[in-house]
């Protein structure tokens, strides 16, 4: 019989070939073109277990420990691996309620059923001890060791800073961080984060579909061990820091003490402060909220971030600039009749001998003398205009570190403010202002602002007779790492050394001199302290008390700036506090108990009332 349908075999063979072609094309796509399956495969079988390194320790300049670590534990859960267990006992160990348990479990399930997520953060070692014994009863729960910061003394909160969890924004920017990692948020913890954090390690394990570890991946070839963070040696003298914080208790303000020969910061006090251990571990967020809401702003680091008019302490700058510009001499005499009078303008002064030379003017803090000096600087015929002379004047200030950030190794430093020529041009019209227009600059009032750090640096420059190193807070990183080289670079201010002598003579007189000296309360029998008081005008209340000083007069060991807000004249509190700090640092012992008691017992509320 003739087969009429024999040709259909071709169609049938084509079916088989078409089927194969479809399969091969699809395989070509998923195996060769599309790479996503490879990633998914790796995610399926590889579990990366992070090894968290211990954070670096922080010591003070004498090798005394300030910050160290304490073990803490995160409890992780893998929801698919859990099975029925004694939840009552579990909750009892952790000290949580059934509702709390359900909420946490729900959050974990929402995150992922198969991947581990944090069930409870930072369990204490004690709780961990209990839990560890019974952990086998709670399948699907794991413990991951972490470290928490611990402090030997409740001081230095602002300069040390604190550690917090990284936020999503940072995770997106920096590949190093993963959700749940810790990072320095402020202070040294922030500025030295890269040294302190060390290096995370990772162990890669192969896991099966039930998430059970089946061994290490590729014989641990791709595993990395964690490297502990580097220890830091701070320039801080922990004893002095603690003493400074004690003196500032119940007062608002700050103390900055610097070793003039190196720029190393000996103490960096901002008051009111807080116990740094308040911002550690599980209590951190609640405490942070509370501190943030506090009206006295304990989180605010006044030493670096508060800008005040420097007041009379600024007179020394005008004296130095006048001498360097040659418009005054140490022996220049200016009379003072209870103030400076020019036409309708009067800058008041207190009663003192008249006329005075430069050292006398510094000692007595004569306003008239420095108004005359400042006017001579700006009306210098060597320049084409007052404005040009002003520019020159401003250059000196910038060389001293005013008007710009000094570049301390701490975050959030404020730059302060020295008005530029164009600032006044905008205000008064181009070149339509004169020396008298800005005469308040002569005595450190007006638009000008400086931070306590900048004032301490000014004291440092004077102590050094013209040079300084950028103030810094860390002197050694790791066993043999020095600080950044920018801190060993000497800056000069363009003012010759001999011009400092009459100023220093005046500062010495202010503390140790006879009648009319402004800061006799700061006098110390054994050591010659050179200092200058100041009063920063405060439009919101009582004036701020300022004192800058250094000691001893020859070969100075410490330069200091003290601000006490709302305390009135510089001599009232700032000078005694500076003097006590110097005594403590240089002699290690306070002999003037009455002075210490006087300072300690005073409570100055932010509104300026003594209590």
């Amino acid at each position, binding site marked *: 019989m003739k087969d009429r*349908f024999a040709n259909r075999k071709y169609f049938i063979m084509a079916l088989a070939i078409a089927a*194969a072609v479809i*399969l091969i094309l699809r395989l070509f796509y998923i*195996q*060769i073109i599309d790479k996503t399956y*490879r990633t*998914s*495969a790796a995610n*399926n079988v590889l579990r990366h277990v992070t090894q968290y390194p211990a954070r670096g320790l922080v010591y003070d300049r004498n090798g005394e420990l300030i910050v160290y670590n304490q073990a803490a534990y995160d409890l992780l859960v893998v929801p698919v691996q859990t099975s029925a267990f004694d939840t009552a006992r579990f909750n009892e160990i952790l000290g949580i309620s059934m509702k709390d348990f359900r909420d946490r479990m729900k959050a974990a399930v929402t995150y992922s059923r198969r991947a581990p997520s944090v069930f409870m953060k930072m369990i204490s070692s004690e709780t961990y001890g209990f839990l560890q014994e019974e952990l086998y009863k709670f399948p699907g729960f794991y413990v991951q060791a972490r470290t928490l910061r611990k402090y030997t003394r409740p001081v230095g909160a602002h300069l040390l800073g604190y550690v917090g969890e990284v936020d999503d924004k940072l995770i997106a920017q920096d590949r190093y961080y993963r959700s749940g990692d810790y990072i320095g948020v402020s202070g040294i913890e922030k500025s030295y984060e890269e040294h302190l954090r060390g290096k995370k390690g990772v162990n890669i394990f192969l896991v099966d579909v039930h998430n059970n570890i089946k061994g290490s991946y590729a014989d641990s070839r791709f595993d990395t061990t964690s490297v502990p963070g580097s220890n830091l040696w701070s320039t801080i003298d922990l004893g002095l820091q603690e003493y400074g914080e004690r003196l500032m208790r119940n007062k608002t303000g700050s103390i900055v003490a610097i070793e003039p020969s190196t720029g190393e910061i000996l103490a960096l006090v901002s008051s009111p402060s807080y116990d740094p251990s308040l911002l550690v571990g599980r209590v951190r967020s609640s405490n942070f909220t509370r501190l943030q809401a506090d009206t006295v702003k304990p989180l605010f680091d006044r030493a670096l971030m508060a800008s005040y008019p420097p007041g009379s302490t600024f007179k020394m700058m005008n004296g130095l600039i006048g001498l360097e510009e040659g418009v005054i001499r140490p022996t220049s005499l200016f009379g003072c009749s209870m103030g400076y009078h020019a036409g309708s303008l009067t800058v008041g002064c207190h009663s003192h001998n008249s006329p005075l030379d430069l050292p006398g003017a510094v000692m007595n803090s004569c306003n008239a003398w420095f108004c005359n000096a400042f006017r001579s600087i700006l009306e210098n015929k060597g320049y084409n205009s007052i404005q040009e002379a002003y520019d020159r004047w401003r250059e000196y200030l910038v060389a001293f570190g005013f008007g710009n950030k000094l570049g301390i190794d701490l975050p959030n430093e404020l730059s302060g403010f020295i008005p530029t020529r164009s600032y006044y041009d905008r205000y008064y019209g181009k070149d339509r202002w004169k020396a008298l227009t800005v005469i308040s600059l002569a005595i450190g009032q007006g638009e000008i602002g400086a931070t306590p750090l900048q004032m301490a640096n000014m004291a440092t420059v004077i102590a050094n007779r013209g040079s300084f190193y950028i103030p810094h807070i860390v002197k050694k990183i790791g066993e043999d790492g020095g600080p950044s080289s920018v801190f060993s670079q000497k800056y000069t201010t363009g003012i010759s050394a001999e011009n400092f002598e009459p100023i220093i003579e005046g500062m010495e007189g202010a503390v140790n001199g006879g009648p009319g000296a402004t800061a006799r309360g700061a006098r110390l029998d054994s050591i010659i302290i050179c200092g200058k008081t100041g009063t920063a005008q405060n439009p919101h209340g009582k004036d701020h008390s300022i004192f800058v000083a250094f000691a001893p007069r020859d070969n100075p060991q410490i330069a200091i700036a003290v601000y006490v807000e709302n305390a009135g004249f510089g001599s009232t509190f700032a000078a005694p506090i500076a003097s006590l700090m110097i005594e403590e640092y240089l002699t290690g012992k306070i002999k003037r108990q009455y002075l210490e008691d006087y300072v300690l017992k005073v409570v100055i509320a932010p509104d300026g009332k003594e209590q």
Partner: protein
Amino acid sequence: MEKNSNILNRLDWLTVLLWGTMMIMGWLNIYAAVYNEEYTSIFDMSQRYGKQLLFIVAALVLAIFVLVTDNKLYYFFAWFIYGMFVFLLLLVLVVGKEINGAKAWFEFGPFGLQPSEFAKFATGLALASYLNSKRQALGFRTMATATSIIMVPVILIAIQPDMGSVITYFAFFIVLFREGMSIYVFISALLAVILFLLTLIFGTVPVALGLIILSFAALWIFIRNSQVLMALGVMAGAGALSYLAGHYIFGAGLDLIIVFSVMLSGAIYAWYLYRYRLKMAVIIYSFLLGGILYLFTVDYAFHEILKPHQQTRINIMLGMEDDPYGTGYNLNQSLISIGSGGFAGKGYLNGTQTKFKFVPEQSTDFIFCTVGEEWGFVGSVVVIGLFVLLLLRLVMLAERQRTTFVRAYGYGVFALFLVHFFVNIGMTIGVMPVIGIPLPFFSYGGSSLWGFTILLFVFLRLDAGRAEYLG
């Protein structure tokens, strides 16, 4: 003795070689799929690879047994064998063991047997025997009878229920096609499959509208009259009006409007028939009406008859559902495993997805994952190549037969292998829904291996005796 040597000379050794190669490759892949450090010996009888070796040896014995049997036996006893397996399929519904919700297994101690795997060869024989007695160019009655022969085991297996096996039986329509089934019926069947998929993907209404427009396009081809376009316009206008009226006055759904439109177009076609005496209008309208009825049936069947998990599987395959950790888990893991194999694969026993059991059922239905992951694109193409070689060889063997009986049986073997091969590999890479059917000679399991071996070797035995007169 002389007869035996005769068989060995006439046996198609290429097919035997392919069969052996596939079994060994399957066995090695099963070893990789269930590989376990504690039982590394490939001969360990407590493990699946050990058992599979046993099944292979048994398959060898079965093959020899089939080859030494007289080929006339399969011809004369075709109906008896068919009847026997129909009985077994009935019996398994009564005394069978339920595994995964299907009463598909006879239990003999540690081993289970699946009659549906063996019933394939019985159905092939019966169908071949029936077609052998008929003229070519199958008429309606012949078609109906042939379909019944296929449908009896299909219905019994559907009761178990084992939808995967049911689908494979539809492969026998390829046999009917080769033996003279009307090309219209075959095309209708193909169209039915396409419409089925389109309806599930796009829903009834767009497909119905598409069909209406297509039918007018067909009409246009036949009469080239601008009135067709006008008719289409009138219908569209009437449809829109009836939609607005229906929707705002009676609150009727789109479905009713389709019905109305179809009736309206029926009137238009009737007018054409009257005006131009155009028979083609009737045919086109029948297709349209049939198509629309069909797609509403499909929609109903899909939503009302299929079980939710079957609906989801089809939905996932059609890309309408994305649920990597739910029902789509198998498919997703299977894709990851095969896709991560890359060009050259990860190497034997180095497949991470395979080793750590991310793919469920990997030694049985998803055995191709092991191939794809450990042997990569190269290995996958080799396996597919082996199957294509076997399939084309089977067509060749079938075509050299003198009797319709052997040829039809041969095409039955071809068709079953084609469907198993395409659907099984297709489901592991997402071109077919996840239907639990084995990959011949690769998947773990005695029943399927023996079933396929008998299926293949009966054909080889018949082919070897093709010079003899069957009776």
